[in-house]
């Protein structure tokens, strides 16, 4: 099973028990059992027949617009549903103490990722690490979600401010701007974060967790707000590390970006480079200490969700992922 990233434009349809991608000049069959996620970057026609077929086979489809911005995902009707889990998810949301306990883990782990990333670059002054450590300690003391979010915001601001010292290319980057990104770095951060976010959505689909009930973000904030929560953990260590490598190895340069008056986006050739390295990264494996097995980077996201489930079942207090390599 793998993820398919489709950049071409054309039509995707069902042919018997398989999927066919038709472009102007070719017809490419894709075995349905082989598809995990489908990422559509091109202009694609789909009909209900093929969408129903995706649903039947548990295939998620992620849509991106002309600029490569994520516009939405097709999340088929869940086949893994447990009333028990939903009840417990809600219980842990309604009780502010329980909610904070989980939310703090997300923030703590995100800041841990910032610190581990900064430490890889010896040119960065140690005082920044001390300040970051301070933020982690502070995060654990907060007693409201808003103030916890505030600490996370402060830590992130400092972290982004250090990017110019990490990235060896000359790029203008003053601060993180999201909607829409205003420069190269913001464009690539937004793009990579959307890949992480969809990767988490996919893993949530493979568990009984309900993607709308979240702890750090408000459940009403977005349809997959739990994915936003969990993505916080993986953005620095999966996403930012990828960004640093691509820019520092000059695999991505300004020729991969298009800059309009007040926004900037990755062109198709750039998107392909990012998607390819991202996909390789997610399939990388690493020895898991506790499982004594090799697991892929994407599997680690799933394991994170299992740990959350075990926390909800009151088996083991949730300790969010901290990178060990």
């Amino acid at each position, binding site marked *: *099973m793998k993820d398919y990233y489709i950049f071409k434009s054309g039509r995707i349809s069902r042919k018997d028990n398989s999927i066919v991608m038709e472009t102007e000049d070719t017809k490419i069959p894709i075995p349905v059992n082989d598809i995990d996620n489908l990422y559509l970057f091109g202009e694609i026609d789909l009909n209900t027949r093929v969408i129903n077929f995706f649903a039947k086979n548990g295939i998620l489809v992620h849509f991106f617009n002309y600029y490569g911005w994520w516009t939405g995902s097709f999340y088929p009707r869940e086949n*893994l*549903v*447990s*009333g*028990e*889990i939903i009840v417990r998810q809600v219980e842990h949301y309604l009780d502010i103490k329980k909610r904070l306990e989980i939310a703090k883990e997300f923030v703590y782990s995100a800041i841990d990722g910032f610190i581990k990333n900064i430490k890889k670059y010896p040119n960065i002054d140690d005082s920044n690490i001390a300040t970051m450590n301070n933020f982690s300690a502070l995060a654990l003391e907060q007693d409201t979600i808003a103030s916890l979010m505030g600490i996370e915001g402060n830590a992130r601001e400092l972290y982004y401010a250090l990017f110019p010292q990490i990235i060896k290319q000359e790029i203008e980057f003053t601060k993180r701007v999201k909607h829409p990104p205003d420069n190269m770095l913001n464009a690539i951060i937004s793009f990579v974060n959307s890949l992480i976010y969809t990767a988490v959505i996919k893993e949530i689909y*493979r568990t*009984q967790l309900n993607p709308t009930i979240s702890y750090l973000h408000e459940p009403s904030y977005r349809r997959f707000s739990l994915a936003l929560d969990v993505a916080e953990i993986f953005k620095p260590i999966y996403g930012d590390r990828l960004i640093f490598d691509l820019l520092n190895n000059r695999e991505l340069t300004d020729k991969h970006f298009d800059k309009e008056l007040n926004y900037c986006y990755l062109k198709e050739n750039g998107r392909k480079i990012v998607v390819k390295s991202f996909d390789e990264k997610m399939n990388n494996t690493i020895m*898991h200490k*506790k*499982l004594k*097995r090799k*697991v892929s980077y994407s*599997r680690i996201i*799933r*394991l994170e969700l*299992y*740990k959350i*489930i*075990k926390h909800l*079942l*009151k*088996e083991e207090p949730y300790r969010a992922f901290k990178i060990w390599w």
Partner: protein
Amino acid sequence: MQNPIITGTQVAYYIVCQRKLWLFSKNISMEHTSELVEIGKLIHENSYQRKRKEINLEGIKIDLLEAKRGLIHEVKKSKSLEESHLWQIKYYIYYFKNIGIQIEGIIDYPKLRKRERVSLSLEDTCFIEKTLMDIDRIIRKPEAPTIINKPYCKKCSYYEFCYC
């Protein structure tokens, strides 16, 4: 008559691991992509394609029931979990006996080209009754039974869940 919604799978899981039974009973099942499951499905579909009939009775699923001859067939791919297979079948026999249908069980191992007859002794009946009461008690617990730490865990679909 015991709670009829206890399924053969639950009986089998009870024999291998009470934690597995609990998780499965709360609908916390892992996705079925493990090769073991896939192979099982394949064998199941190919070996008995012509005769294949599946019935579902109050939550009890039987792979193949030749009602005229009063036989329950279970198709299994290996003998590795013999004990739990056996009890699963015995439970089916017990169940049907209670609703007045006499049947005999057969476990088929198409890969090993073997079949085995199964019957239900008085002792078995006692064991099953105790098992059903136990299952009922276990799945009512608010917390899952602990990890069993047995070699079987490595093959179990819950391995990553339990040990991560």
